[in-house]
């Protein structure tokens, strides 16, 4: 146990010291990401909700199973109560995704929420508090944009009667975005890691196509149970 703690501390230190090295020059591909992206027509394919269940349902820890038992949808339905969703919940559902590029910061819009992805490797400021969107840092790994998000507060990535919990100090989401050669298709691999609630990472793959559809805001009206 002592050895294990030592290894974790050592690795945490190393990760902290090398973090700033990852700031990279903005790539041309980063500008090409700027667009609205939406899932292609399903044409009989499985919904993302179902695929999230397949990826996660059998991997719950005892703590996650207990979380489920205590869960009351009427007290926690973020959709019905118009509350902010966890950024890690976004990719369980087939919603649109929008990128806005300012080089040092990529803005990711989804669920009517804006997430900032810092491309310059900066760490959260001292007055930062964990929240549902977390803190996102991006870098390019070849032609793939890698976004790591930490500092989530406790939440869920799927609700309903069988929620999937996610979040807390150890939770991490890694997104890998890769553009097709013609720049019109965006492939996304999402890994959600949360050892408190899952015995292994939850891996999912999504595809988006570039869209020029006009989207607009819709007021969320809280529902009453």
């Amino acid at each position: 146990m002592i050895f294990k703690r030592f290894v974790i501390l050592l690795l945490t230190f190393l990760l902290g010291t090398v973090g700033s090295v990852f700031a990279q020059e903005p790539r041309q591909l980063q500008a090409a990401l700027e667009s609205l992206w939406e899932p292609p027509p399903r044409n009989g394919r499985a919904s993302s909700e179902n695929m999230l269940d397949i990826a996660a349902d059998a991997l719950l820890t005892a703590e996650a199973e207990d979380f489920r038992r205590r869960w009351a949808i009427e007290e926690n339905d973020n959709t019905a109560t118009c509350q902010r969703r966890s950024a890690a919940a976004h990719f369980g559902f087939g919603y649109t995704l929008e990128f806005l590029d300012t080089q040092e910061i990529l803005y990711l819009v989804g669920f009517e929420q804006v997430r900032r992805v810092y491309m310059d490797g900066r760490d959260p400021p001292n007055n930062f508090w964990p929240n549902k969107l977390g803190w996102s840092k991006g870098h390019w790994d070849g032609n793939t944009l890698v976004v790591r998000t930490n500092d989530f507060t406790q939440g869920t990535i799927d609700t309903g009667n069988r929620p999937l919990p996610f979040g807390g100090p150890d939770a991490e989401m890694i997104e890998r975005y890769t553009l097709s050669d013609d720049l019109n298709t965006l492939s996304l691999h999402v890994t959600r890691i949360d050892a408190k609630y899952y015995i292994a990472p939850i891996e999912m793959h999504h595809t988006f196509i570039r869209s020029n559809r006009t989207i607009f805001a819709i007021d969320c009206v809280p529902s009453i149970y």
Partner: protein
Amino acid sequence: MISKWSLLSSLVFLVNWESSSVFAQEAHPLQSVLQGLWVEDNVSGTETLEQRRFISVAESNLRDPGEVFRASYQANADTSSCLMAGALAGEAADFEILDQGETIDLSAFGRTRRVYMDFWLEPPQTFEPNGLGWSTARWAGDMLVIRTTHFLEGAIKSGERPLPFGGPIAQMVERYTLSEDHNHLTVDINLIDPEYYTFSLNVLHSYVRADDIDRDTTCVLN
């Protein structure tokens, strides 16, 4: 440098992840207690409210391929007396559990399904998808969690209103929980089949320990 990051992250992951496959799960004391004969906790013998709810939710979530399956199923009728593993969701039949340490044998509907207690064990290359699928299990606290994949397409409920299930991406997750006196068992079954259903289907059956059960005769595969 990126690979260094990946390597360090992987190491953190492995060190933190006590439950991952590199740390084998020890035998759970309740595994041997599960062994025995179990009958549905339903004195009336008629369809329970839970079963009715399950069937109506399944029917209302059927996608087009599911409706097509139903139509053709009527025409073909049952071609085999062997029910698939997921049929326990549609019909809470009596069943038997035999603990063999590294495996558990689950017998119902005249068939025996082998459950491997190494959760990450992959089926051998010679394994062909079938009605029972490939089952592996682990303990989450005092709950036995069984994941079954590699199903052939079949029906979890036969008769005039069949419910399709199975195929390459179908997955069944069963959760077995013993009561404190070890004489009652709840089985929570989650069926996820995006091919046929809009959402995953869930049903909860209750069982009591029995001295004997009505054993189905061994089924005949066509």
